[in-house]
């Protein structure tokens, strides 16, 4: 039986008036997250668009504690907070990091790996919008192949694929990691719940819509996020102690173009001279999916 609360926010834990753009992934992902984590949560926020959305002094967008911290060391700041709360007997409080892809794939990578390796009891949430959006859409190592950014403009569009953060974090043998989409709210909310209940280091990576950065129509944020899953550009899966499980199998094969054509950052790929890049993206997506299928098979066969 489908329950409304699987989709709906029963009790809103963020205030209205958050400072995001229309159609921003941050705004929606934090609403769902906060509604499930509850007020007994400390959110640790490195520099990112969410630093702004969370509210300037003296405001707080979330009903919960928020600590803004330096860009490179949110998991370390969270480690100190966790230790202090544990010493005060507040073991039931959740400590959650809310970081962007730049803060995760790049500058905060070492701090993330350190906290994951130590098995810190932290929930790491990464909003992967594929660029340094807060500073104006610069390339990060999460920026997709083919995208233009303000530092990979025009013909110099990004020509390397993002690093496989999920693979890297899975290799840390943490108890729970999952990818999430804002077009699959039931799946997202289940994963938040599971991450909340799991002890140890947990990571959720959300495909983050960003209309100004992706050059998309804000009204289409969710439908584009759905296309990213349907085309397997952003597959939904979870990893428990290196065991992979795919959460959604698209019914039919949808070419990556269907998703990319909706985003201005890929517009140049549809000109004849760069169509080859579309094939490369399709090949990469297909082989990553094949790899996921193999990893899933490997994970659960005796």
């Amino acid at each position, binding site marked *: 039986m489908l329950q409304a609360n699987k989709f709906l926010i029963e009790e809103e834990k963020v205030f209205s008036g958050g400072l995001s753009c229309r159609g921003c992934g941050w705004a929606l992902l934090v609403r769902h997250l906060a509604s499930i984590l509850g007020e007994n949560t400390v959110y640790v926020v490195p520099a990112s668009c969410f630093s702004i959305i969370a509210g*300037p002094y003296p405001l707080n967008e979330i009903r919960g504690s928020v600590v803004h911290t*330096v860009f490179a060391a949110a998991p370390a*700041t969270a480690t100190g907070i966790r*230790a*202090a709360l544990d010493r005060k007997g507040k073991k039931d409080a959740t400590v959650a990091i809310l970081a962007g892809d730049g803060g995760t794939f790049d500058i905060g990578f070492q701090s993330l790996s350190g906290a994951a390796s130590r098995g810190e009891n932290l929930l790491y949430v990464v909003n992967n919008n594929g660029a340094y959006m807060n500073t104006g859409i610069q390339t990060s190592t999460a920026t997709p192949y083919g995208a233009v950014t303000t530092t990979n403009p025009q013909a110099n569009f990004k020509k390397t694929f993002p690093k496989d953060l999920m693979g890297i974090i899975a290799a840390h043998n943490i108890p729970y990691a999952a990818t999430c989409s804002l077009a699959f709210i039931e799946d997202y909310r289940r994963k938040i719940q599971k991450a909340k209940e799991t002890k140890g280091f947990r990571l959720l990576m959300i495909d983050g819509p960003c209309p100004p950065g992706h050059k998309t129509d804000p009204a289409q944020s969710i439908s584009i996020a759905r296309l990213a899953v349907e085309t397997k550009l952003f597959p939904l899966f979870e990893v428990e102690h290196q065991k992979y499980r795919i959460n959604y199998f698209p019914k039919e094969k949808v070419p990556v173009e269907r998703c990319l054509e909706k985003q201005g950052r890929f517009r140049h790929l549809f000109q004849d001279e760069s169509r080859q890049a579309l094939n490369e993206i399709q090949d990469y997506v297909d082989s990553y999916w094949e790899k996921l299928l193999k990893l899933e098979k490997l994970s659960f066969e005796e």
Partner: protein
Amino acid sequence: MNNVTTNDSLNTKTTSGKSYARHVQKILKGNYAAAEGAKLARAGFIPAYPITPQTTIVEELSNKVATKELDATYINMDSEHSVFAAAMGAAIAGERVFTATSGQGLFYAHEVLHAIAHFRLPVVICNVGRPSIPWNIWSDQTDSLAQRDTGWVQFYGESSQEVLDSIIQAYIISEELDLPVMVVLDAFYQSHTSENVWVPEQSLVDEFLPPKKLKGGEIDVDHPKAFGGLIAPDKYETFNYRYWVDINKVEDLANKVGEEFGKHFGRKYSAVEAYNITPETKLVLVTISSITSTARGLLPRYPEVGLLKLRLIKPFPKKSVLKALEPLSEDASIVTIERNFLGDKEGALMMEMKRALYGERNIKMYDVYTGLGGKDVPPRTIEKIIVKTLEAPEEISWIDLE
């Protein structure tokens, strides 16, 4: 109130022959004295990362935690940047925090040093001074003096005893004013050199330094609030102003706490210490850390020479310095001894002394670079400085340059 130690206490720096109630006398290297200080202060959270010559401080603390001699959460972090970020997190959540670092580690943490100070967090650390690249692990105060502008209070300890005692005092100052404090000791000459140290009993320290009192500004999950959000230009300087009001209290508080420490433990401290500064004094040597001991040893042979030891460096104790120099005549001179190189003509002590004396005293000042990168500064070198400054002074000189 006389905050300046005078001539008659010339001999009080050696604790030999003295005995302190409720203390145990031990032979300890400086780093172990520092670890002892952190333990006696009951630090509850210790994030750590190795770097020579600091490492034995955190090793010893990890031992004390493993053997349950100290009830603390000790965490091996992935870098000093992370160490200081973790210290920041635990301090925001109200924990008493300690860590130690050196040179590159302190440089690496620079971003977080600012954040801790301007989050107004009571954190105490030890820094064992060493310089930067090209690699050098030996005694040099460039690392900590280069962090003068981060907003941390800085004490420089002359002996292992002073390091241990200063850590305890640092927590009182830090927690009263919500400012971080760095206690600095010299690489090897202190960190790895054994000295007699009187270690107070835990109960004696507990009476002086009670458990950390929460002030309501910490993370409290039952009463959620936000920390560190963007501050608009119209409000930002208000925070700087409040910081400024409190940093200006440090000098008096350091003297007061040093005085009270004396009453409680039998060893009195002040922001600066003066020796043989009289109307007859022709030259005053200005020193920090272990060079002070070498200089002090020479004073009996040079009755015309005085010594000003700076214990508090940041904020610079201008009042105490002026008071200490009060007896000095205007035709005497001052020489600052710099074991730091900040890429400028003058070293840090000269810059600070000029700032303090400007418009107040018109005394000739000379600056000497020596002992950088750990080069020994034996009595012979100090004598050269004395003779040169008395006979043929130069505004800036490098002594014993090879």
